[in-house]
């Protein structure tokens, strides 16, 4: 039986059809064989993650899990880590409900109820948030259920409750931002808040662990006697999520009631303003952004200089990139703190700091290289200009590498004061990591708009995986070199092989 047009069920079916088709297109790119290969890959990855989870869970279960304060602190702390990721993702997705255009103009100009569409789209955000966190947590939950008992499956209920609560909070933040700063700035600020929420808690925990224990293991903090002693009493409501995850039926029911109730309330309160706010967000396309008149005269420059300057200007004015870079910089804060704490005392800290910097260089270079090389909004202009494609590529690569160097330079300088050898190791490995990521983006380059940046990872999974894997291997090389081990040759050889393999399978080669 088909649903009545423009009803909740009808909108839900429409959204589901679109989401499913987009998902299958992203995953398979229209090729059945690719879908089968991906399914096999996912099964293998899931099996590996479950195996790793077993390694974590088994020793804990062997000692017997009792709902004492230490267990509740560990569970709540770990759950909080998952929840900040959920809140970050929900905030990012809720902003898209207001700002993504696609079919919104059509629907808002129709007599259909925008409230129903809003309810469905917000519900979809909550579902996707729950699904992602559920997937991330599933190896641990499933292994706990297998090894310790099925009561742990109640943790999925907590995921549902926290997903709903995150979406409700994300909605409240978005509406508050619309009121406080207006539609023009809401998206950027929401993205920055999402980035800080996603990274901030993890980084804060790491910073606390470094200050107290001198290492970056965030779980060390949750297991410390001081924290357990300072935590509220066992009967506190703060432990409700942890109790629910451990199979306490009443706690689960309360959690679900709070989460789903908050979501229903948030949708009910925000739905009436959705049409108005979405239209005000749409109006931004027609608002000019006045810059200060530049008295600066045109400067004589070579073609390479002109291309580099253009890339830097565009990177500097890209708000999404700014929020992402801010997040990358936040991730660099803990190693910088560790470096500062151990300044002149302990060379062991470098084993932790070097790989983080190397990994961050690779990741940042990959994103920037995509924007500079593939994300060319005026592709035709650059191609029809009297400049050889080689010069264009060289200029764009230079633009990317200079930015990476500028970000890393202060940290390398700090490192060099303490240990020039470690600074050199970091600089070499970071250059190799950034170079590998840039080369992979070069070989897998496509003609795309910068606005497609978010989808770059699904456009070529081979490029994304090889870029990440090469960065990890260079980070491993850096860590082992920092430890003074010749085993560093191992990950270095693997990194070279990964880059070579990427070159072989790249479209440019084929």
């Amino acid at each position, binding site marked *: 039986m088909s649903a009545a047009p423009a009803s909740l069920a009808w909108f839900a079916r429409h959204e589901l059809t679109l989401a499913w088709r987009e998902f299958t297109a992203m995953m398979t790119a229209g090729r059945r064989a690719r879908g089968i290969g991906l399914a096999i890959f996912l099964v293998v990855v899931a099996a590996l993650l479950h195996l790793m989870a077993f390694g974590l869970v088994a020793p804990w279960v062997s000692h017997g899990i009792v709902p004492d304060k230490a267990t509740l602190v560990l569970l709540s702390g770990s759950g909080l880590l998952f929840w900040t990721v959920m809140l970050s993702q929900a905030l990012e997705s809720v902003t898209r409900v207001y700002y993504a255009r696609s079919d919104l103009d059509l629907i808002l100009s129709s007599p259909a109820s925008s409230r129903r569409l809003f309810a469905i789209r917000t519900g979809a955000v909550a579902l996707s948030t729950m699904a992602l966190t559920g997937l991330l947590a599933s190896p641990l939950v499933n292994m706990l259920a297998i090894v310790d008992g099925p009561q742990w499956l109640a943790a999925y209920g907590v995921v549902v409750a926290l997903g709903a609560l995150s979406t409700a909070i994300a909605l409240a933040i978005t509406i508050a931002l619309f009121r406080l700063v207006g539609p023009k700035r809401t998206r950027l600020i929401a993205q920055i808040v999402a980035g800080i929420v996603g990274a901030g808690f993890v980084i804060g925990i790491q910073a606390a662990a470094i200050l107290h224990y001198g290492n970056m293991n965030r779980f060390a903090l949750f297991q410390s006697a001081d924290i357990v002693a300072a935590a509220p009493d066992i009967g506190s409501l703060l432990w409700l999520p942890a109790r629910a995850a451990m199979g306490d039926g009443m706690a689960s029911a309360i959690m679900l009631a709070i989460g789903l109730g908050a979501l229903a309330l948030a949708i009910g309160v925000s739905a009436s303003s959705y049409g108005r706010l979405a239209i005000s967000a749409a109006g*931004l*396309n*027609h*608002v*000019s*952004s*006045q*810059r*200060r*008149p*530049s008295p600066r*005269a*045109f*400067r*004589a*420059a*070579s*073609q390479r*200089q*002109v*291309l580099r*300057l*253009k890339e830097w*200007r*565009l990177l500097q*004015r*890209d708000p999404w990139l700014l929020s992402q870079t801010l997040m990358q910089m936040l991730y660099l804060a803990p190693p910088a703190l560790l470096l500062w704490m151990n300044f002149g005392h302990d060379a062991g800290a470098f084993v932790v700091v070097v790989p983080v910097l190397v990994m961050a260089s690779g990741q940042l270079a990959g994103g920037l290289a995509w924007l500079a090389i593939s994300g060319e*909004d*005026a*592709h*035709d*202009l*650059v*191609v*029809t*200009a*009297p*400049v*050889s494609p080689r010069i264009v590529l060289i200029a764009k690569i230079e633009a990317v590498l200079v930015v990476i160097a500028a970000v890393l330079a202060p940290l390398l300088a700090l490192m060099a004061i303490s240990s020039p050898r470690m600074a050199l190791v970091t600089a070499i490995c970071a250059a190799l990591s950034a170079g590998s990521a840039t080369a992979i983006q070069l070989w897998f380059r496509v003609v795309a708009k*910068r606005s497609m940046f978010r989808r770059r990872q699904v456009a070529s999974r081979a490029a994304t995986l090889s870029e990440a894997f090469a960065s990890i291997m260079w980070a491993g090389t850096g860590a082992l070199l920092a430890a003074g081990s010749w085993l560093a040759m191992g990950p270095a050889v693997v990194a070279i092989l990964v880059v070579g393999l990427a070159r072989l399978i790249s479209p440019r080669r084929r």
Partner: protein
Amino acid sequence: MTIPALAIAGLAKSFDRPVVADFDLTIRAGEFYALLGPNGAGKTTILRMVAGLLQPDAGSISIFGVDARRDPVAAKRVTAWVSDEPMVYDRLTPLEYLEFVAGLWQIDARTAEAKANELIDWLGLGPHANELCGGFSKGMLQKVALAGALVHEPQLIILDEPLTGLDAGSARQVKDVLLGKVREGVTVIMTTHILEVAERMAERIGVINQGKLIAEGTLAELRTRIGKESSLEDIFLDLVADAA
């Protein structure tokens, strides 16, 4: 004998089927040439090959005597490409955009700045010269793109449906700019679906269908060919129907 602005011989391009086959065309310097054809006739493919945006499968393209396939950089120095989708950066201002284009064509900075300001005023973009292009209307973006095409003083301007989506005022401004350039001796080749524009502006008109030139000449010559006094629209429909 004067060197033609554009000489195409035996041009061919196939994707999953042949799109352009054995295509010949010669355009004199200082001429305004309109290339017409139904959807999918191969007009854009031909112009993209001339502009260096597509690699031909076969044939030659000569721009003011320069073999564009052998020495594309030299050919590009004297050409400009304007498509229906303005090639403009959202996060640059019109002045910054023109500075970038002038830099790509290695125009002297002072000359480029004077020319850029002149074009900005000429196209009515003065009040928006320091605004980011992201908030501009389609017409304004197309004017910025056109300014970019003119800032390096090209000898051959290639335009693919430049009037698509423009309002009457913007379209008139773009047409006036192009006619002014032709009067200065610049060669213009343009595709358009607005036959009235071709009828009023072009000195010669070429009609293509299925990648082949099926008729060419002035409006009077085309009328003579089909043997009746008709509008360009009637002539075009007759020619395409005959070719099919």
